[in-house]
């Protein structure tokens, strides 16, 4: 017996017995969903004289906006940077699997690769069915928000696991270099580059103008170079502390952006943190969080091996070795990426920083949405937002994931080995 149908015929779902993350706090409220969006129940009651068709009893769970992962290189044996024939299949496969971790939207990340890889990926996306264009999530998996192109315009000194021979600099004046390497910028959400490279400032401006988020990373820039890039439009820092100059009290480097007073008014600089307990010492995580809590964005930077057992695997153009929870460039002790899942990162972040449940959840949902400029429809449980939800228990373990109000997956099969290590 739903509404008088003056607005819509679609069925209405009411989530009861839950606590929802809204207005920066956990409220004891019901959540109403219709046609894949969060519904205002008061308007429904008075305007349409309607009520719910279906009630879902959440048994006291927490409902948070679905997590958004803006840096993920692959997983479950899939490597986005491998120039395979069916890139879109790979992205779709991972999109489906990460639903179990509460991730409802993500940016497939490509590390430094030769132009052929980029062209294949972007062209195949253009030419084949639009499966890996920017699209919303659904039963097929989490939504793709656009690519995160990490490199190749990065610093040789701070390349980390990226292959040196494919690094590039800006030769002909910015945009041309980009198009030559990437092929197309149509489905790109984020580009990571090193701002100390000559000619980068105009590139930063051009990318920002196109609505692409510019991120500083894999760079040896000092603070003033970083600030200049921010003034030209950069708004993100790729995995803070990693692949950049360490904080120094006379030249804080990129890390100094967290408390810089030369950020344009009204702008926030966000920074990615890999909170897996390995890439960042908990004390460093706390320093960053306390210095600039509203800019913290949890990322997994997950590599191919995420979700797989220990051993050797491929990332980009190199071979990686898994030992326990660590993933190294084979034969070295250089970290090549993490194999933590987003929900693990949320739990670890909360435990290491001592922050509230709300802050931990916002770092994985609201802040990435704000970074990408999509917080009007993602990352929040406000009326009218997309109903991408994750149901969690007290310990912030994923119980269920919903995309557009439809349940997509139950809880993940527990990865006991990884959990055990993280609990230390």
């Amino acid at each position, binding site marked *: 017996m739903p509404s008088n149908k003056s607005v819509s015929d679609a069925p209405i779902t009411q989530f009861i017995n839950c606590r929802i993350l809204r207005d920066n706090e956990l409220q004891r409220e019901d959540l109403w969903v219709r046609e894949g969006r969060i519904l205002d129940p*008061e308007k429904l*009651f*008075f305007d349409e004289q309607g009520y719910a068709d279906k009630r879902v009893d959440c048994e006291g769970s927490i409902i948070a906006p679905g997590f958004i992962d803006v840096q993920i290189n692959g997983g479950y044996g899939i490597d986005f940077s491998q120039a395979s024939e069916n890139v879109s299949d790979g992205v779709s496969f991972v999109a489906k699997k990460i639903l179990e971790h509460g991730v409802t939207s993500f940016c497939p990340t490509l590390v430094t690769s030769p132009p052929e890889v980029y062209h294949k990926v972007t062209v195949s996306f253009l030419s084949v069915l639009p499966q890996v264009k920017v699209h919303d999530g659904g039963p097929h998996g989490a939504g793709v928000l656009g690519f995160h192109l990490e490199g190749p315009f990065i610093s040789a000194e701070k390349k980390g696991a990226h292959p040196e021979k494919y690094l590039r600099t800006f030769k002909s004046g910015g945009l041309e270099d980009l198009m030559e390497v990437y092929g197309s910028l149509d489905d790109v959400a984020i580009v990571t580059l090193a701002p100390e490279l000559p000619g980068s400032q105009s590139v930063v401006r051009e990318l920002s103008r196109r609505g692409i988020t510019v991120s500083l990373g894999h760079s040896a820039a000092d603070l003033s170079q970083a600030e200049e890039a921010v003034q030209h439009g950069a708004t993100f820092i790729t995995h803070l502390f990693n692949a950049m100059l360490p904080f120094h009290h006379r030249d804080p480097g990129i890390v100094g952006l967290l408390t810089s007073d030369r950020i344009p008014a009204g702008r926030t600089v966000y920074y990615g943190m890999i909170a897996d307990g390995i890439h960042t010492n908990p004390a460093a995580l706390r320093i960053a969080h306390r210095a600039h809590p509203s800019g913290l964005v949890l990322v997994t930077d997950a590599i191919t091996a995420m979700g797989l057992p220990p051993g050797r695997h491929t990332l980009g153009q190199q071979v990686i070795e898994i030992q326990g929870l660590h993933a190294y460039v084979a034969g070295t002790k250089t970290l090549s990426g993490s194999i933590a899942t987003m929900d693990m990162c949320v739990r670890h972040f909360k435990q290491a920083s001592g922050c509230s449940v709300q802050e931990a959840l916002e770092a994985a949902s609201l802040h990435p949405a704000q970074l990408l400029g999509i917080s009007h429809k993602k990352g929040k449980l406000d009326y009218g937002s997309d109903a991408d939800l994750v149901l969690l228990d007290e310990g912030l373990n994923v119980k269920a994931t919903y995309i557009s109000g439809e349940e997509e997956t139950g809880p993940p099969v527990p990865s006991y080995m990884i959990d055990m290590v993280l609990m230390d």
Partner: protein
Amino acid sequence: MRLVILDDYDLASEWAAKYIRNRIVQFKPSADRFFTLGLPTGSTPYGCYQKLIEYYRHGDISFKYVKTFNMDEYVGLPRAHPESYHSYMWNNFFKHIDIDPANAHILDGNAQNLEEECQAYEQKIAEAGGIELFVGGIGPDGHIAFNEPGSSLVSRTRVKTLAKDTIVANARFFGNDLSKVPTMALTVGVGTVMDAKEVMILITGAHKAFALYKAIEEGVNHMWTVSAFQQHPRTIFVCDEDATLELRVKTVKYFKGQQPTRKWRHLDKPPLREGNWTNGIGRQNLKEQTHD
């Protein structure tokens, strides 16, 4: 008149909620025969609503066959404003119970034609068969709904300009900024409430004591519009000790003496009786407790 005096606000709210619950249950409402309830807003009935929600959650009452008519609503305040009476009723009552939205009636302070809205409201009440039980509160100036001092005691639903007392009393909901408080409201008339079969007025707090005194110990007077209910055949005033502060001791003793201790509790579990060392009831209470 019945004057029911409870020790404090919580007990008064509970008594009132139980009375409403019992009346609805005993009425046995159905699809052909709805129970019509008149409802107030404000801080006084808040505890009563909380209790009713508790009884609903416990399964003691359903609002499926109950029609409600609220007393009043501000003019010109957006319906979604957190201080509108629509918001109050939604957040504090409707969203927690099983009432059919089509049966919850509140005056629309943003209607195109306010006069027509008021007349339509009277019509709706008539079509529903009149109000079985009208629950109301009292203002510090003795008003019922927004029938300010000077309102006709036979008035019907209409637009009213609010008195200074009322605006000041409501300022606390608008950040203590007098300029933000609405100055007009739609309200049921004194006559409209008098038409109900039964009226229950909730009065709690020392700041209402003088108004209660004027309402029940002085004459019927349009300056204290609640006094009109002296001429209603079935009125109950439910109050706490503080609200009786301006009454004569004789009045209070008379009505307190009338209060039966167990008569209205037959729908509850039996209460623990007062025990002392001579009557041995304490031991009986212990037995009753363990059986629960």
